[in-house]
């Protein structure tokens, strides 16, 4: 491609296509770059290779049937999608779930945040050629998945919450298992930090690479760790606290320069904060009911079903038709591992959702990717994609 550069030189650019299926694309996405030597003069990105029509499919079933689909949005922290969706629907009924359910959801959220950050950080490091960290993190992640398995039988796609509560209460040894896994998480985070924080190769590859200023990050609609890495101290858990996050002692981690290094380090330090939140939540885990008793959401107990006609009818209606939120619209968001995960739900009063729009956090982050890369080098494509944590499941829906 023959062009005249902005400096007035006649040069020839080479176009290079990366993806959609490439080990470094973390899913399926495509980058078309025009190269001047090794530098990216301009590039465009394409998504949609994993578009399954999520928002069309979920209009065909009941609200409960949406839940398994939400697992497949950000599949690195599936439980947080479950929790966000259930919280949004419960909000339409103005129902608050019992205290024990809230605490369990906080524990599951924070552990999910940790394993999500682990995948993000260590796969990014693998893209840079640092494989050791991968084993340290994936061994610990496996321990968390063992807890998931004991909790609900599933590992990756859990469908662990229900509208109005949980699939079931946690198993008796749950608190001990979590306490043990937290120690392992701390030690693996320390190990990985030791390997990378002052590592010259890592710093050279990530410092001042793909810098996004705070103003740009806000305009791009960035949320979560990526926004905080650009130096903006905003976190939904602090700013619009839900599930009692205002009662937990934790710091928001913010970066200074908004480069790839900051985006990785913010996640590493957030894991330590999440460990602290989980410990505090474990101390709050008191016996009690796990499901709401609101008849519009929760199944009646077996005892009631066998002895009370109304409860029997209610049970049938909830199984066959599901919940029926009042007609109207509602937007609700939680701080997921990647940023603000929002659900805009439109209900016509029927059993099926009329329209659900998911606001996936990595959509806005990937929209900025072409701008981030331009002016940098081709090697930065792989080095920085992991740091914005693209999960094609929620990006393409």
């Amino acid at each position, binding site marked *: 491609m*023959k062009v005249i550069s902005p400096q007035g030189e006649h040069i020839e650019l080479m176009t290079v296509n990366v993806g959609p299926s490439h080990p470094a694309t973390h899913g399926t996405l495509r980058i*078309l770059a025009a190269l001047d030597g090794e530098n990216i003069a301009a590039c*465009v990105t394409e*998504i949609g290779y994993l578009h399954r029509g999520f928002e*069309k499919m979920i209009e065909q079933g009941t609200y409960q049937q949406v839940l398994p689909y939400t697992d497949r949005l950000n599949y690195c922290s599936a439980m947080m999608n479950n929790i966000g969706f259930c919280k949004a629907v419960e909000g339409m009924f103005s129902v608050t779930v019992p205290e024990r359910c809230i605490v369990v959801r906080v524990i599951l959220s924070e552990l999910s945040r940790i394993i999500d950050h682990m995948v993000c950080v260590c796969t990014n490091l693998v893209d840079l050629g640092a494989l050791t960290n991968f084993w340290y993190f994936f061994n610990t992640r496996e321990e968390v998945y063992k807890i998931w398995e004991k909790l609900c039988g599933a590992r990756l796609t859990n469908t662990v919450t229900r509208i109005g509560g949980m699939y079931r209460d946690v198993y008796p040894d749950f608190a001990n298992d979590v306490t043990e896994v937290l120690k392992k998480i701390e030690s693996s985070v320390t190990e990985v930090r030791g390997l990378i924080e002052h590592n010259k190769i890592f710093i050279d590859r990530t410092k001042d690479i793909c810098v996004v200023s705070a103003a740009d990050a806000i*305009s791009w609609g960035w949320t979560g760790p990526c926004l905080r890495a650009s130096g903006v101290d905003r976190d939904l858990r602090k700013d619009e606290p839900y599930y009692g996050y205002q009662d937990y002692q934790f710091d928001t981690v913010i970066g200074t320069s908004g480069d790839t290094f900051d985006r990785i380090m913010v996640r590493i330090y957030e894991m330590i904060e999440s460990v602290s939140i989980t410990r505090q939540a474990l101390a709050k885990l008191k016996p009690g009911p796990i499901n709401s008793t609101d008849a519009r959401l929760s199944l009646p107990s077996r005892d009631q079903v066998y002895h009370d006609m109304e409860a029997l009818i209610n049970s049938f209606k909830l199984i066959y038709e599901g919940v029926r939120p009042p*007609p109207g619209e509602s937007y609700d968001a939680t701080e997921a591992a990647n940023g603000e995960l929002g659900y805009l739900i439109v209900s016509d009063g029927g059993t099926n959702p009329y329209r659900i729009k998911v606001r996936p956090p990595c959509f806005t982050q990937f929209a900025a990717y072409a701008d981030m890369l331009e002016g940098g080098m081709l090697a930065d494509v792989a080095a920085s994609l992991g740091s914005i944590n693209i999960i094609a499941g929620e990006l393409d829906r």
Partner: protein
Amino acid sequence: MIASHAPVPHGPIQPGLGALQLEEHLRDRFAMVRDPRDLTGLTMVVAPERLREAIKYLRDAENLKFAMLLDVVGIDYLSFPDHRESRFAVVYLLKSLDFRHRLSLKVWVDEERPAVPSVHELYKSANWAEREVWDQYGIVFTDHPNLKRLLNHHEFIGHALRKDYPCQKRQKLSVNDMMIDQLEARLKSRGYTLLEHGEQHPGSLITRPSAVPHTGAPPPPGGATGARP
């Protein structure tokens, strides 16, 4: 590229305006009406011709500072019971980083002329979000710099999230989007002058001139409404 506007918030988030104050303020200034459908937050309905002006004001006013456009959402009310307004709505989810307030702006969009002004100059996030709404609902965002499909294949006919698009309908889609036209447009916007058009490179199976010269003009009217299934 668009210059970024947002001053970076410092310190903890402030309480901000309550829903009632916000509603009164916007009603007086932009003749907006509160949408009673919103169950938990505040949705205000604004006329499409005042949308850009209103969003710019919401972004910049000292006591509002809606610095972030979280998402742009299309809704098709075709089969909504007892619906009297226009068929489509576009909802803009706005959030402030200085104040703890949120706002949704709703614009009603006619079926015959589904067009809304683009706000890509005000928020960078609008570019892709509007492309997605165009892709799924066929709503045109006038003056959008690159209104192309985002999630669906470029040969896809119709708009999948419209209520009259059958869920099980299948389409045969064959050739990849070369994206050379988009790349050329980006090079131009970065100050390069192109000396030749079209491209032959190892990633493409065929050599062809760029199919659609990039002009920035909205798609033709036929494409605007989209072919009905």
